[in-house]
């Protein structure tokens, strides 16, 4: 068996020759064959054609079962010719087994070109074919009505049961219908396959399907007509004649791809011009392989992906029934891939030859495609940039521009104008001064400038880079927003510094006027009491009592001051407790709702001061009966809200306290809003990002 699989020729070629010889011997010595030579020629031609073409196919394509199936058909035809035997046993057996080759032929057509049956329906059809091919002749023989052999009587029919004509008619009718149905199924399948086939696949299927399909149509008609007329026999014979070309068509296809292999490399190079663009290379491949849908994918090492001929990123598709990928690697290095019709797999020699020859040219093209990919990337980059770009000549004349929105251009028709036409002269001079420097020194120059557009001052940043000897690029970015933010940031910083200075001065003043004065008085009082201790103990005692009161007041003042610097309770016991303490000291009743969020110390401090300042304002100005304080965390921000039911009308711009708070919150990238419509209370709301804090 192993020998048979590895070297089918060794066992089967002599077998086919032997079977042919045996068939010839039996035919020529047959007593019941009328036309011995024609019959022999037909059997040997058809049988050997299938057997030897099949063996060639088997040897060339060991993995393709088509060759093997052809060999089976060939041997089946030779087996049928054993019915020429004068021996009753051989005659009867050959009559029963003589139709097997038709079932094998059905399988061959349906399995073409891979040799494998792809659908369940096809497999069932083939099984039904084999069953019919065995049972139909058996039943016919069992109820054979009369002798069919001439000029002499047939050998004895060993399975004959009766000559009952009715039984014969019924069995014949049954298997004729069965055969007709099977042939109809085959036609249905091959028409379906033809319609779903790609152009490349049609080229492979075409010749075989035309001849095979035609013979099946004739066979179907023949088998239907046969029981009623001798014309049926003629039709079946013609149908069999049409199967003759099938093995040769297969063989021809095989020889064609073998011959093509040598020509393939040459074809590729001939089809592709010397300095071909990637598109032309792809077109060359399409023609050389006869697949107009073929795509070339080049490996792009910098991006570690494939790109198409236009330089766009491309992901290789998964192999499907219709479309597969052939990778072209060179010494473990990826070069390219061909995405093509699955039918080309049936011509591996052609594909391999083309692929081999292609690697060299593709390696060259890959560099070209890399350039395109790079250009594509730069284009994407430029498109993504919001900047205005101008190409300007050394003489200051605009050669081209790119703007996301035309409204960004001061003057719309830019090309052809000079920088002095478009810009204030002083600015144009500055631009050209930098441009000359960029052109001479090959450096990138920058300049910032302002333009008054529609009454609003816009700030711009220009970058100038040489592009060739006599041309430069001016890339302009509108930085107004950034400038405003910088300005606001500076102002905010200045306010923070000023507020800090003021706070220090206030603190020093408070210390000096308050606790320090009390301590001074205390020191003097104690000294006085000390001097009176002996002479007037009673007065001394009263003085000491007054000193104690003074000291208690000094301590309270110090505590109040310390709270103003930083509330110790916030550090020690957290925001919740600190706000509780604030609420307890507030002159206006406070409803407090603090969620237990984990906030950083700086966010907690900011939240505390927002509440503290807002409560102080409520007490001083709002004339409110209730304040609601809420602290929560939503969407990554701490949200502090102080709402009162007072008279409203607070102006956040005028109050230095609120502005100081806004600066403090802004320093943490947060926002402070004050909503205070007259007569409807005030809402102070701060949002501070938790991450930043």
């Amino acid at each position, binding site marked *: 068996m192993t020998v048979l699989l590895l070297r089918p020729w060794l066992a089967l070629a002599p077998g086919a020759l032997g079977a042919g010889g045996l068939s010839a011997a039996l035919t020529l010595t047959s007593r019941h064959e009328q036309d011995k030579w024609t019959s022999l020629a037909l059997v040997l031609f058809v049988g050997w054609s299938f057997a030897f073409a099949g063996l060639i196919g088997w040897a060339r394509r060991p993995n393709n079962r088509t060759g093997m199936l052809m060999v089976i058909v060939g041997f089946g035809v030779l087996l049928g010719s054993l019915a020429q035997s004068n021996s009753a046993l051989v005659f009867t057996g050959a009559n029963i087994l003589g139709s097997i080759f038709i079932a094998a032929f059905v399988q061959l057509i349906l399995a073409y070109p891979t040799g494998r049956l792809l659908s369940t329906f096809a497999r069932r059809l083939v099984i039904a074919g084999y069953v019919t091919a065995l049972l139909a002749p058996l039943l016919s023989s069992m109820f054979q009505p009369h002798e069919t052999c001439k000029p002499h009587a047939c050998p004895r029919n060993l399975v004959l049961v009766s000559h009952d004509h009715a039984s014969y008619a019924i069995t014949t009718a049954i298997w004729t219908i069965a055969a007709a149905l099977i042939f109809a199924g085959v036609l249905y399948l091959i028409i379906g396959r033809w319609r779903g086939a790609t152009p490349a696949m049609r080229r492979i299927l075409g010749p075989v399907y035309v001849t095979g399909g035609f013979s099946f149509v004739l066979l179907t008609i023949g088998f239907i007509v046969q029981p009623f007329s001798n014309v049926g026999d003629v039709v079946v014979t013609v149908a069999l004649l049409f199967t003759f070309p099938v093995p040769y068509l297969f063989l021809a296809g095989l020889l064609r791809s073998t011959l093509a292999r040598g020509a393939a490399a040459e074809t590729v190079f001939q089809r592709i011009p010397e300095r071909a663009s990637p598109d032309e290379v792809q077109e060359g491949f399409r023609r050389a392989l006869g697949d107009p849908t073929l795509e070339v994918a080049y490996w792009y090492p910098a991006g570690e992906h494939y790109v198409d001929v236009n330089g766009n990123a491309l992901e290789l598709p998964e192999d499907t029934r219709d479309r597969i990928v052939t990778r072209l690697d060179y010494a473990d290095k990826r070069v390219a891939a061909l995405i093509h019709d699955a039918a080309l797999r049936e011509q591996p020699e052609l594909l391999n030859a083309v692929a081999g020859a292609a690697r060299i040219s593709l390696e060259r093209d890959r560099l070209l495609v890399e350039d395109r990919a790079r250009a594509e990337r730069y284009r994407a980059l430029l498109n993504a940039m919001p900047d205005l770009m101008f190409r300007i000549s050394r003489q200051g004349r605009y050669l081209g521009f790119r703007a996301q929105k035309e409204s960004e251009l001061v003057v719309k028709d830019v090309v052809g104008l000079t920088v002095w036409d478009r810009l204030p002269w002083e600015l144009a001079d500055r631009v050209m001064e930098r441009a000359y420097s960029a052109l001479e020194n090959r450096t990138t120059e920058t300049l910032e400038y302002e333009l008054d557009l529609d009454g609003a001052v816009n700030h711009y940043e220009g970058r100038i880079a040489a592009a060739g000897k006599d041309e430069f690029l001016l890339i302009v970015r509108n930085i107004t927003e950034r400038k405003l933010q910088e300005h606001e940031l500076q102002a905010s910083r200045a306010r923070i510094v000023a507020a800090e200075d003021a706070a220090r001065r206030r603190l020093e003043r408070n210390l000096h006027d308050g606790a*320090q004065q*009390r301590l001074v*008085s205390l020191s*003097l*009082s104690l000294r006085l009491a000390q001097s*009176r201790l002996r002479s007037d103990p009673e007065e001394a005692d009263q003085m000491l009592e007054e000193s104690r009161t003074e000291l208690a007041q000094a301590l309270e003042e110090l505590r109040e001051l310390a709270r103003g610097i930083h509330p110790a309770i916030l550090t020690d016991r957290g925001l919740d407790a600190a706000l509780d303490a604030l609420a307890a000291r507030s002159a206006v009743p406070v409803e407090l709702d603090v969620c237990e969020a984990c906030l950083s110390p700086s966010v907690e401090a900011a939240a505390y001061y927002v509440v503290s300042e807002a409560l102080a304002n409520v007490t001083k100005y709002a004339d409110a009966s209730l304040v609601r304080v809420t602290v929560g965390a939503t969407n990554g921000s701490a949200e502090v809200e102080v709402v009162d039911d007072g008279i409203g009308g607070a102006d956040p711009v005028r109050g230095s306290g609120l502005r100081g708070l806004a600066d403090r919150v802004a320093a943490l990238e947060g926002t402070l809003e004050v909503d205070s419509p007259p007569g409807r209370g005030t809402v102070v709301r701060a949002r501070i990002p938790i991450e930043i804090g």
Partner: protein
Amino acid sequence: MANRIGRIGDLGDHTGVRVLIVDDHPSFRASARGLLEAEGYEVVGEAADGAGALEAVEELHPDIVLLDVQLPDVDGFEVASRLTTNEDGPQVVLTSSRDSADYGSCIDDCGARGFVPKGELSGAALALLLAL
């Protein structure tokens, strides 16, 4: 006048030396008055600011003015300068709850006799300054 100064120079006896206390903190004025009077000085008046001090000196002719540096209207140095331009004017002793080092050379330049930190104020301290 010379007689009085002579008495002021005597460290032990301050009886009859007339003092004007100028400070904007009532608590300090009261304590200082108590302390100085206990040591024999005669506190002839008090003033809470610079203008009040100048008026009181005009009216009361004290021997010594105990003058706080930080006053609500003009600072103590200004008041001291004005008081000491007249040779017959009172001796001025500056005082403050701050340290004298905080004021640099202002104390020497304004014509005052010296500086007593508020916490160290006593009759003896005043007498020591005036004796120098």
